[in-house]
């Protein structure tokens, strides 16, 4: 088996949809391709690690690649199953589904390629490709608002990734000025020590962090995220929040892995500042919003802030940060897919109208409840341990002001989210509804994510734990 298969399988499936061979059963093809790539990703994780570059040095599978392949592909499979079930049970969704399936398959191929890419510019290209394929998926027929959200998403992607490209050009100049052979191949960059820390490099790194921060929804350029997640169909919002977010995060990890050792103060300072500001704006927005999808979107900004702070602190926070990242991916997938189910039944996204979920839609009520509890960082979920380790590292590194601000913001988020979500679950049903009960195929993806979430909090298999520890160590530099 070659890692290239992870790209080839979805790419060939997309081609089959495009030429018409797979049109009749497009959603089945989507699930089939996702199933194969998930199996391939698991084999990749279980096989002996070979961090050897191949394909003209452009492909290299290391611990980071393996960890994220093992997370992103199963989540994509779950979302695909949700799409298949929704299309099967809702005839109105048949229109235009081939186009969406084709785009989703290219999105998966680009994401997998990004996870195993060994070149910073290739990472940039592939991240932009995921944005280009996601944009038409956000657009819904007969919705001007969705089209405008897609436009805004593309605009911010262009600007954010433009900043990254500008940063790379500066980093290149920094290497030239220091007399180093300019390269963006990751394995060569890991071998080049020490890397320069002149003005060009600092400017380049700062721009690149700012640009990637835009893709992650970090302040100051986060305003695209709530609108996009709100207007996109829930399955697409789940793809953006749980799959593309992790792809962008891998690009950030690569930058940190390469440049932290020689530019520690800049990386820490910028990530901590962006993280804290993101937490502040998202907390205020969570208090104000009455829209369920926007609430999850603001929670995503909040999570991105926590991740940026964890990454900025580094050291012992890195392991916790990874637990938080992995939990966060499953939480967002659960919450967006559950929001989709709730909105499909209540025909609204207003949290004041939705009430008595536990009686009306027991499965969705339970998923929303557990997802929210995990979102808020309660035990036994991985997000609890992750946050605890990040907080402990903040104290350990003497950043008491950041620690205090972090605690205050987390508490406010907890109260605001609980105040909005819990009445939706346990409140009295406002109208008599006769909802059809959820079937197992509809609940299965979320159930699987839930199991993964609990496993991350209670018992992590030793092989997977070793992988997390390797990635945590790599975040300190080569």
């Amino acid at each position: 088996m070659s890692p290239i298969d992870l790209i080839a399988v979805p790419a060939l499936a997309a081609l089959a949809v495009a030429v018409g061979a797979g049109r009749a059963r497009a959603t089945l093809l989507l699930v089939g391709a996702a199933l194969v790539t998930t199996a391939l990703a698991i084999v990749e994780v279980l096989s002996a690690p070979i961090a050897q570059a191949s394909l003209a040095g452009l492909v290299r599978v290391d611990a980071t690649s393996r960890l994220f392949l093992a997370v992103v592909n199963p989540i994509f499979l779950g979302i695909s199953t949700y799409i298949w079930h929704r299309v099967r049970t809702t005839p109105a969704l048949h229109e235009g589904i081939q186009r969406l399936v084709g785009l989703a398959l290219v999105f998966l191929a680009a994401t997998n390629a990004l996870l195993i890419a060994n070149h910073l510019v290739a990472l940039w290209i592939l991240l932009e490709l995921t944005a280009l394929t996601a944009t038409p998926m956000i657009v819904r027929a007969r919705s001007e608002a969705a089209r405008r959200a897609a436009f805004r998403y593309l605009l911010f992607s262009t600007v954010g990734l433009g900043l990254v490209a500008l940063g790379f050009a500066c980093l290149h100049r920094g290497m030239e000025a220091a007399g180093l052979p300019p390269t963006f191949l990751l394995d060569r960059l890991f071998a080049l020590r020490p890397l320069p820390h002149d003005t060009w490099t600092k400017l380049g790194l700062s721009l690149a962090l700012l640009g990637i921060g835009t893709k992650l929804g970090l302040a100051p350029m986060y305003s695209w995220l709530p609108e996009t997640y709100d207007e996109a169909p829930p399955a697409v919002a789940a793809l953006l929040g749980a799959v593309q977010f992790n792809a962008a995060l891998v690009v950030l990890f690569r930058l940190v892995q390469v440049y932290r050792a020689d530019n520690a103060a800049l990386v820490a300072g910028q990530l901590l500042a962006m993280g804290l500001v993101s937490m502040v704006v998202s907390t205020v927005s969570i208090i104000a919003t009455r829209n369920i999808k926007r609430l999850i979107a603001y929670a995503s900004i909040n999570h991105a802030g926590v991740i940026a702070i964890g990454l900025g602190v580094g050291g012992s926070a890195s392991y916790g940060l990874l637990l938080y990242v992995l939990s966060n991916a499953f939480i967002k997938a659960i919450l967006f897919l559950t929001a989709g189910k709730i909105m499909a039944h209540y025909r609204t996204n207003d949290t004041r109208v939705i009430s008595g979920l536990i009686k009306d839609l027991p499965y969705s009520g339970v998923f929303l409840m557990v997802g929210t509890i995990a979102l808020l960082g309660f035990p036994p979920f991985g997000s609890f341990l992750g946050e605890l380790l990040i907080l402990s590292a903040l104290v350990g590194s003497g950043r008491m002001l950041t620690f205090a601000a972090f605690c205050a913001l987390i508490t406010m988020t907890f109260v605001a989210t609980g105040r909005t979500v819990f009445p939706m679950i346990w409140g009295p049903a406002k109208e008599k509804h006769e909802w059809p009960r959820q079937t197992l195929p509809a609940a299965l993806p979320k159930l699987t994510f839930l199991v993964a979430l609990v496993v991350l909090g209670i018992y992590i298999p030793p092989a997977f734990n070793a992988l997390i520890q390797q990635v945590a160590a790599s975040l300190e530099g080569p």
Partner: protein
Amino acid sequence: MGLLGVMVVPLFVATWRSSLFGLSCQGFLIAWAAYRLSPELHSVETWLTLVDLVVVRGIAAPLLLYRLLLSQNRAARHDIIAPNLLSWTVALGLVLAAFNLSAALVPVDGDERALISVATAAVLLSFLVLASQSTAFGQVVGALRLENGIALFELGGGRHHGTLVTHIGQIAIVAGTLGLYVWLLRGFSESTSIPPATTQDEPTL
């Protein structure tokens, strides 16, 4: 000076045609600068750079947007930045700031510093355009100006750090982004007012 002129002048001429003409001129002048920097034309990378700058940025981008706006019967007047003294002062201030920043980055006076100065000015002005525009077309112009500024910045060497595959990939991304912008703009209604709130009446995935 020519490059700086095509970055600045369209900001003060308030028609969409002049904006597009400015974008086209930027593409051609950056291509000319690229040719001046490596006149041999032996490598595939150099040819690809020229194709990107001339065909995609110099011809395709302005032409596609021109045809689109013409089909929508758009009024001739279109301010890229707000037509007042404050905006003009900010624009000129950004150009000055770009030159000062470049002097700090490249201590030796010469062609390299001039190139960096103009590229920095182009990037900063593109942010001014993006910040002051509320129309989709104006924001696309801002984004394309940013792309041109980056292309100019990369002329000093940043563009040739990759392989042929990454180079082709970069051009494909620029072309794909342009295509998507045109597709999205085509679907917008003429109105620039706030879009109606989303209804949850139709089923979504």
